[in-house]
């Protein structure tokens, strides 16, 4: 939680005796969870290194080939070894991480915006609107979407944009359901009544007063959506449907490495490790956030 979100939320909870207590409390609880903090630190390090990798001094260019050297096992010069074309695997893993993480973050943000708006509007309006909007979600839910994503990517372009659309298309459904459930109970509360009495528009009530109060579950679910999307992207890339060469993500690196597994195992092991560690940390952080933010679980902590 950045400091920026705190005042905004504090405004909404003025009715309680100690404003910000939920967030300050959650923050304290999270900091005590050593695994979650370590995960956050790891994610920050790997995220920053990957994002800044083109400008890092001393790092090999991931595209430079050295055919005479070919594939070499890990050494002092090449920490993760090199591939058949003599490219430095460490640099390739960082470069692949840029794409994997970017796909994960962008698709998550897209699905979060769509899902939160959809769920908030359906929950707040209620009645027929709610019925129609959520029935639509139900229908989409029942579709075997992975097949549809495969179809979309096979029959149409295999661009990164299509990948965002295909991945984001799916993930907003759960978010919409979570937010709607929250909004249904929130809209009965006095502060919403008060805002309405003051003449606030529906739009202002939904996005200024109700949505900030759903942030807890939204943050937790978002943290768990990022690894889900990274995994989906890697899955599609592994099948050859995701990121296309010359770009590479962790999924394509693992896929390429799996083909020469018996000869150059390090080409699978290192990208696989980077991918797994990242997913692991996101899951740990998500778990930690849920424990810190979910009031349902606080009973057994005390």
């Amino acid at each position, binding site marked *: 939680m950045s400091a920026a979100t705190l005042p905004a939320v504090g405004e909404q909870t003025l009715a309680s005796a100690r404003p910000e207590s939920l967030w300050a409390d959650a923050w304290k609880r999270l900091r005590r969870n050593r695994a979650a903090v370590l995960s956050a630190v790891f994610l920050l390090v790997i995220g920053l290194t990957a994002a800044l990798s083109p400008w890092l001094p001393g790092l090999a260019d991931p595209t430079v080939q050295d055919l005479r050297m070919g594939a070499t096992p890990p050494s002092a010069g090449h920490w993760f070894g090199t591939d058949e074309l003599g490219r430095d695997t460490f640099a390739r893993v960082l470069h692949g991480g840029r794409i994997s993480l970017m796909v994960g973050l962008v698709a998550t943000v897209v699905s979060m915006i769509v899902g939160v708006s959809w769920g908030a509007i359906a929950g707040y309006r209620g009645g027929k609107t709610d019925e129609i909007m959520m029935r639509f979600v139900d229908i989409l839910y*029942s*579709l075997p979407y992975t097949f549809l994503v495969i179809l979309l990517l*096979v*029959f149409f372009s295999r661009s990164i944009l299509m990948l965002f659309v295909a991945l984001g298309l799916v993930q907003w459904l759960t978010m919409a359901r979570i937010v709607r459930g929250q909004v249904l109970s929130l809209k009965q509360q006095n502060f919403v009544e008060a805002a309405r009495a003051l003449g606030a528009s529906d739009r202002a009530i939904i996005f200024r007063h109700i949505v900030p109060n759903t942030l807890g579950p939204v943050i937790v679910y978002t943290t768990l959506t990022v690894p889900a999307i990274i995994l989906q992207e*890697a899955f599609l890339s592994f099948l*050859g449907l995701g990121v296309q060469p010359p770009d590479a993500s962790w999924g394509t690196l693992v896929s390429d490495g799996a083909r020469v597994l018996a000869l150059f195992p390090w080409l699978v092991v290192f990208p696989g490790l980077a991918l*797994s560690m990242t997913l692991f940390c996101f899951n*740990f952080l998500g778990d930690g956030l849920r424990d810190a933010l979910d009031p349902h679980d606080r009973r*057994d902590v005390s």
Partner: protein
Amino acid sequence: MSLGGFILRRVLIIIPTLWVIATLTFFLVRAAPGGPFQSERDIPPAAKEQLMRKYGLDQPLHTQYWNFLTHAVRLDFGPSYKFPQRQVREIIFEAFPVSLELGGWALLVAVLVGAPIGVIAAVRQNSRVDYASMAVALAGVSVPNFVLGPVLVLGLALSIYWLPPALWQGPQSRILPVLTLSTAYVAYIARLARGGMLEVLRQDYIRTARAKGLPESVVVTKHALRLGILPVVTYLGPAAARIIMGSIVVESIFSVPGLGRYLVNAAFNRDYTLVLGEVLFYASFLMVLNLIIDVAYTRLDPRVELA
């Protein structure tokens, strides 16, 4: 509501959903650029025309759509585009048992290994066993099967030659694919079982059971388990769906001749009829499976109303 009425109502929802999926995939596939005979561009026009007639592609779109729907109801999707001498139905019926066997074993392993781990972790909450098994479970959830698969092959097949690295011949060839496919679900089910059991073990009726002087083992197995295991039962539906998806990757890694590998190949070959047939087959299979699981759920938890 009676059980019969419940099933009937669910079937009535399944039918329009399948129709939506069929329609969506049909038009998606037709709207896609590049025809099915793209790779054989140098065939003479007369032969091409004949091929188009054979597959009914010379007819107007709405006729094609109608023909597709009426035949699909009978699971008849016509001959494959890529292998014209074979019917899609034949391919599906041949490949499905293989996928079913792989997925069935994976699900079985996931429940039989995952649930006991979770229950034990819950009973010994905050012990070392609990922390260790949950950390391992979280790691298991995080390792994608397409990473785990190659690593297992490397460790167990290519360096010490314990198991065959690929193919689907003989019982030994089953071990690696099943292991690869089930690991994530073993881990997830362990987490679910732990959560469910912790919730139940706090309840008053458990305290009552303990107060009666029942031994802890009876309290856990006879009283708590039935409710505590419910999250796992609910998860079986989504788990089956995900195992089917995972099966696509695992079948590709290990060259298992199942539905998943056919789907990937069909998608690459633009084998329209095979793709359509498979997607519809998968969708109906999943929905029937979910129905069965919902019924099982109501049997386990008398509080759940059929709705």
